[in-house]
């Protein structure tokens, strides 16, 4: 009988009871006594000089509390970038000031140009319409190649150009790399675009700043994936406030996907304005604002080349990418196209020479930063597309070509700085072939052709670096923060447990999975354990949730803290049973003395810790509460293989996904049901990128797809029923649970499978199409077929 509790069981998500019955407590549900509302007036042009702003008429409008412009923030810091990349010549990245409110220059549509605080939101909006501007329009810089031209208009006048950095990674010796290509039996080249995306979590961003004159303390309620990071960045770099006077609370958060990692201007504004106005200040983003103010994702333009020898072994890989930074550097922006992308370019393959070149570029567009997968989808997409193209050019079977080049011995040191600790790519490919029913494809294709449809099969592998990250390594690579996490296990006198964690749940199900681990370690019922998260006033300093790190890093901290609890509890139990603590065993919530029938229950030990009448007070402190910080020794490396089957309607170009199969190796798994859900969600987002989503700008820097009328989010009927398998498990070798993380895999691994399948379908219909840029909309597929 399957376990219904503990590690490996699939209890239902306990948090869903409140989410599904309308009892969630999201930031917009919070209202502070006396709060005012802010409306941000946002730029509707992409690039302009602000000559003057006249707020005098607006200030006289009913209900207006105060109007802020860029001048009000001249004395505070700009929004910081959390990662400094060093370029190929040893120079630091170009890093412009990122103001809270545009001061002299507007640099993207959606940038804040003024903020009106009023008694009601409608009054704030009315007043904002009365603000008068004098602007001088400047040419918008949108296209990355044009932005890098000698005579390009500069997004930032004080920088030398629109180039943020020019970075090389892997083998830096151009001649040696070229020699490998010159001696290759075959070279496959592919130019492609990784399309810009808008995260669009269901809950838009919200911030409420509050200030207490009595205690000189600030509280910021915000929709964040990492409240401690927000507090640190805002206090230390922007507002110059002492951290102990600032509390950041991120309660229930309705999805993040990366877009709620970053410190945003609106958070600093509301905190600052609360003191300046003497009232709490609330902002709730509209969906329209979200499109032009939430950091976007992806937006790479890449040329990739793969060299093979006469036996189809990969001998060298070279990529050249331009990555869009937008107008300013968002929190983790510069790490995404560099260390989260270049380090994954080896993929699952033993290619001996890999060179990654990346130019990051400023443009008059919304800042670009991490989005589910962050750099790893961009790496996986180009690598798995070029391998597929090579297989077609060589007449090789795409599965066999991959298998032949798999890394099979671990640990494996890649040419791009990572050491994969464990994995079994042959096993996941074997499993995938079975789950995807590769053998039955020919019959399914024949059936589709009978109905006038083209059917295609696409496959790819992926590997990602998760469990971010060893602090010393990321420090060397330019991170301006550590990436450990923390947990405090607080045992109450009656034996129930609160675990305060630095990770933040915004859809991942931590409130269910984290207690499974602690309860399993002690042998008590899961209902005795709760987690607390999302409040710097209640949890230890943790770095939050992104990069599939929660269970691998914060979960490890929780295990370490629980181990400390158990060690101390054993000493108390030993005292109670007059035995040596070395002889104490803990099982099913009972402490026993080895070789005897003596026992004492978990609850009795906990009570003794807090009512220490019979207690070794001279040797042991009373109480039962322990904290651990955990800094991982390495990244974790989830990996797997995905297969997609599509039908293409040759008359319209419409693609429908008929099957999607995933074989993932996530190491050990805490809750298989939740892992299924994470994979399903990731696949949905990857399919969205592949077929539907596109944040498109026109040449004036206007976002063309700035609402759901034009930005195509995947809907339920756009995705198939998935075949998901995670029975291949090579446990992580360096964390206590042997876990790897599963949050991003689906989004990383699915786009190339979809595109490979569509190309396969078109070629089966006699169309000589070798590539189509995402999204593979009906119009694009039809154009490619009829090009």
């Amino acid at each position: 009988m399957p376990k219904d509790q503990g590690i490996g069981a699939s209890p239902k998500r306990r948090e869903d009871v409140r989410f599904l019955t309308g009892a969630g407590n999201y930031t917009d549900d919070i209202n502070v006594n006396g709060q005012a509302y802010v409306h941000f007036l946002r730029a509707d042009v992409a690039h302009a000089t602000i000559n003057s702003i006249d707020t005098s008429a607006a200030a006289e409008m009913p209900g207006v509390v105060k109007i802020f412009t860029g001048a009000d923030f001249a004395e505070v810091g700009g929004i910081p970038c959390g990662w400094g990349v060093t370029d190929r010549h040893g120079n630091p990245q170009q890093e412009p000031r990122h103001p809270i409110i545009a001061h002299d220059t507007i640099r993207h549509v959606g940038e804040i140009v003024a903020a009106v605080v009023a008694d009601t939101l409608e009054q704030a909006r009315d007043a904002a319409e009365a603000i008068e501007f004098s602007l001088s329009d400047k040419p918008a810089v949108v296209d990355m190649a044009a932005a890098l031209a000698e005579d390009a208009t500069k997004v930032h006048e004080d920088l030398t150009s629109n180039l943020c950095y020019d970075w090389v990674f892997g083998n830096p010796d151009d001649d040696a790399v070229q020699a490998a290509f010159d001696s290759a039996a075959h070279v496959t080249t592919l130019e492609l675009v990784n399309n810009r995306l808008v995260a669009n979590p269901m809950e838009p961003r919200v911030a409420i700043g509050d200030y207490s004159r009595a205690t000189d303390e600030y509280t910021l309620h915000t929709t964040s994936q990492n409240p401690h990071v927000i507090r640190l960045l805002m206090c230390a770099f922007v507002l110059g406030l002492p951290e102990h006077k600032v509390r950041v609370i991120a309660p229930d958060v309705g999805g993040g996907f990366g877009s709620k990692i970053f410190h945003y201007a609106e958070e600093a504004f509301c905190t600052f304005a609360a003191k300046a106005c003497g009232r709490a200040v609330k902002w709730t983003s509209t969906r329209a604002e979200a499109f032009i103010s939430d950091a976007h994702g992806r937006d790479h333009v890449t040329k990739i080349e793969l060299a093979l020898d006469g036996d189809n072994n990969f001998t060298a890989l070279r990529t050249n990418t331009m990555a869009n930074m937008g107008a300013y550097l968002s929190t983790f922006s510069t790490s995404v196209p560099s260390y989260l992308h270049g380090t994954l370019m080896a993929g699952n393959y033993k290619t001996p020479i890999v060179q990654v070149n990346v130019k990051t570029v400023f443009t008059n567009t919304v800042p670009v930063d991490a989005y589910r997968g962050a750099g790893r989808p961009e790496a996986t997409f180009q690598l798995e597309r070029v391998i597929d193209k090579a297989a077609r050019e060589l007449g090789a079977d795409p599965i066999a070509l991959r298998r032949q080049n798999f890394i099979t011995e671990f640990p494996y040191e890649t040419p791009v700085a990572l050491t994969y600790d464990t994995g079994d790519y042959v096993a996941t490919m074997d499993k995938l072939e079975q789950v995807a029913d590769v053998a039955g494809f020919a019959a399914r294709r024949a059936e589709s052709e009978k109905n006038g449809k083209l059917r295609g099969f696409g496959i790819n592998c992926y590997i990602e670096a998760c469990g971010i990250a060893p602090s010393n390594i990321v420090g060397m690579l330019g991170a301006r923060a550590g990436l450990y996490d923390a947990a405090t296990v607080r045992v109450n006198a009656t034996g129930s447990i609160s675990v305060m964690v630095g990770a933040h749940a915004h859809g991942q199900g931590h409130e269910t999975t984290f207690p499974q681990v602690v309860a399993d370690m002690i042998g008590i019922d899961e209902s005795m354990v709760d987690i607390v998260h999302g409040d710097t006033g209640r949890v230890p300093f943790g770095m939050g949730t992104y990069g599939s790190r929660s269970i691998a890093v914060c979960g490890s901290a929780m295990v370490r803290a629980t181990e400390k609890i158990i060690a101390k509890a054993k000493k108390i139990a030993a005292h109670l049973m007059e035995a040596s603590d070395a002889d104490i065993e803990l099982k099913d919530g009972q402490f026993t003395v080895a070789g005897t029938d003596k026992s004492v229950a978990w609850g009795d030990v906990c009570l003794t810790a807090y009512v220490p009448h019979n207690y070794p007070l001279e040797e042991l402190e009373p109480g039962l509460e322990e904290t651990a910080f955990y800094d991982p020794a390495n990244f974790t490396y989830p990996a797997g293989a995905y297969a997609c089957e599509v039908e293409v309607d040759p008359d319209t170009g419409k693609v429908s996904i008929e099957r999607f199969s995933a074989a993932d190796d996530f190491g050990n798994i805490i809750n298989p049901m939740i892992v299924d859900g994470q994979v399903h969600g990731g696949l949905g987002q990857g399919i969205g990128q592949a077929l539907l989503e596109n944040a498109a700008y026109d040449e004036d820097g206007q976002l063309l797809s700035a609402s759901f009328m034009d930005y195509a989010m995947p809907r339920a009927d756009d995705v198939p029923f998935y075949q998901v398998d995670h029975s291949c498990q090579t446990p992580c070798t360096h964390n206590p649970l042997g876990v790897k993380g599963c949050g991003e895999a689906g989004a990383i691994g699915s786009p190339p499978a979809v595109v490979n399948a569509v190309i396969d379908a078109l070629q089966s219909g006699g169309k000589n199409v070798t590539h189509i840029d995402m999204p593979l909309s009906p119009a694009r597929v039809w154009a490619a077929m009829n090009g």
Partner: protein
Amino acid sequence: MYEFEFEKPSTVAEAVAALADEDAQALGGGQTLIPTLKQRLAMPSKLVSLTAIPQLKELSDNGGMLTIGGAVTHAEVAEAAAASYPALADLAGHIGDPAVRNRGTIGGSLANNDPAACYPAAALGSGATIVTNTREIPSDEYFQGLFDTALNEGEIITAVRFPVPEKANYQKFLQPASRFALVGVFVAKYAAGVRVAVTGASEEGVFRWREAEAALDASFAPDALDGLSVDAGGMIGDLHGSKEYRAHLVGVMAKRAVAAAG
């Protein structure tokens, strides 16, 4: 949204009187107007709701002529016309999503005349008559371009009269984001001839594809349309499809509609 007055009359006469005020605007199901107001893109002095007027909620099937009140919702049409005019019911049943279909009205849709809306194709493809508080307007004269109709200021669509065809079908190719019609083609075969109306495609809004009508008059079969095409020149080209793509889809959807009409 900006402030406005609100009235909810119970007769057409009261509604017409209420709409006489400067900048007063009629409100049907609000599926276009309310989002427009929320974005502060319109500033009516007054909204006059048409949804509490019993006359506008009437729906009758008079043996070959289906009359639908201006304030009848898409969901109501989908149910009530299922037997008498299944192609129209099917079209109504696939507009937007359930929330839209339970609020949006036929009069509102036709008065707005969005170039990607479905109902204009049905009305023009059926040769329907738009009945207002003052006159009857043949659909061939009613649609006058993007968001433009023959309606005068303050004129209210009280009903739409659809002659029921021998056979008909509507094929919609969805714009991937909005799921409005990227191209929608309504084909209806009457004793007097075939009508083919196209929505979503043209820069001029809904239009009749007369070449296809003539071909289908001669032979009501998909292959009768072989070799026919609309000129890409007047088509809409945007993020979701080029002019050429839309022109191509008109042919594909027309054939499919003929095939499905049987």
